[in-house]
């Protein structure tokens, strides 16, 4: 049995931390709806790249921290992100070999699922949805996926995270 030790856990944690900082960085109020789901994007990348290291539990933990960070309902992002991680790992073998723009389509669907879970939990606790603008964020997330992918890939190779 070939055993390759894990390396670069700090890099993974750092990217998640950066995504969280970007999530709460102040933006003008009119741009709030356009903020892509940074943590979701980072999670999807690591689940594509290292599915045996970053998975459902990492997604759940990141989501829980995000809930505390944004003072939202505890467990809301946790549920959404662990579902995203699960779906990503399920499809990673097919999607990993796609060209970037086709990957972006898959990412769009994953982010839309994330948004759907948030919408669902919000409506269960009786919070009115903001309307169609709610669906802009996944579109923007998918649009910047090639950029995120290249950046994180460079980071992963630079620090030889495996």
């Amino acid at each position, binding site marked *: *049995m*070939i055993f*390759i030790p894990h390396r670069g856990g700090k890099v993974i944690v750092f990217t998640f*931390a950066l995504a*969280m*900082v970007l*999530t*709460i*960085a*102040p*933006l003008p*109020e009119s741009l*709030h*709806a356009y*903020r892509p789901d940074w943590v979701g994007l980072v999670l999807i990348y690591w689940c594509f790249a290292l*599915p*045996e290291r970053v*998975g*459902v*539990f990492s997604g*759940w933990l990141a*989501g*829980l*921290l995000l809930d*505390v*960070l*944004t*003072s*939202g*309902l*505890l*467990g*809301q992002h*946790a*549920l959404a992100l*662990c*579902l995203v991680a*699960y779906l990503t*790992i*399920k499809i990673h*073998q097919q999607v990993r070999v796609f060209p970037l723009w086709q990957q972006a389509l898959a990412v769009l669907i994953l982010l839309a699922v994330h948004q759907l879970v948030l919408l669902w*939990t*919000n409506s269960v*606790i009786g*919070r*009115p*949805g*903001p309307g169609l603008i709610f669906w802009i964020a996944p579109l923007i997330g998918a649009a910047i996926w090639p950029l995120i992918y290249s950046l994180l890939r460079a980071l992963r190779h630079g620090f030889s995270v495996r």
Partner: protein
Amino acid sequence: MLTRGNAIKQIFTQGPALTVRLVILSLLSLTLMTVDHRYHHLNPLREGLSALVYPFKLLVDLPRATSGWFKESLASRHSLQEENASLHTKQLMLQTQLQKLESLEAENLRLRALLDASFDVGKQQMLIAELMAVDLDPYRHQIQINKGSLDNLYEGQPLVDSKGIMGQLVQVGPFTATAMLITDPGHAIPVQVNRSGLRTIALGTGTTERLELPHIPNNADIRVGDLLTTSGLGGRFPSGYPVAEVIKIEQDPGQDFSFITAKPRALLNRSREVLLIWPTENRLAIEADTLTEDNTQADTSQ
């Protein structure tokens, strides 16, 4: 089997285990959400985790904090002198007005004593907190302030700015606290029309510049321009603070109630500094602190 490599391991080790993990974590999240939404048992967990994520908030707030620090330390002597002078003038003006207020207060007390009504005009303890430049859940009206339970803040504490009531604290961590603004769709505040004494409730609408007053009959004594103040009936907000001003009254003879909107007095999306107040009922908790302060003052005066 012995030569099974890393690649094969990646393909076959995530079978049912992954799904099982998903199901367990989903159930855990659902439980967390239910408990968090219905009861308040999770506050210790939230407090602990909020201390853990405090560095993130500090980091995000850093540009604002440092720019403020630079502005202060690099300001020229001249501009500081000017600011000082203007503050002096303002202080003098306020002092004069305060004198008038004190005499009015005394008069009010005397009149109330004549009417045999009790009225407590105790000076309220206050604390200034600063807003942190942190974006929270975009679909709620919440703000983050840089004081927490270490400064004796408590859940449900009222928050005001120089113009009026802003909201109340909903989560208090050790170093930071989250406040819900009066315009949050989940917020309601008991108010009173200052002119006529009509009592009602002002509901948040989710729009920053608008509150709604439901269930006011068409013949009620309320006009555009009326000031709404806190009535103090909920026990949460002290009475007599300005909340909002009525800006629109729509009356439809076919409807039982008029549709009334009001505009919050407080600068909800512009204030940088907020005041936390301790209504008199909650003073017991912080009495110890005030006592020690009084002692030190007494010491220095001797």
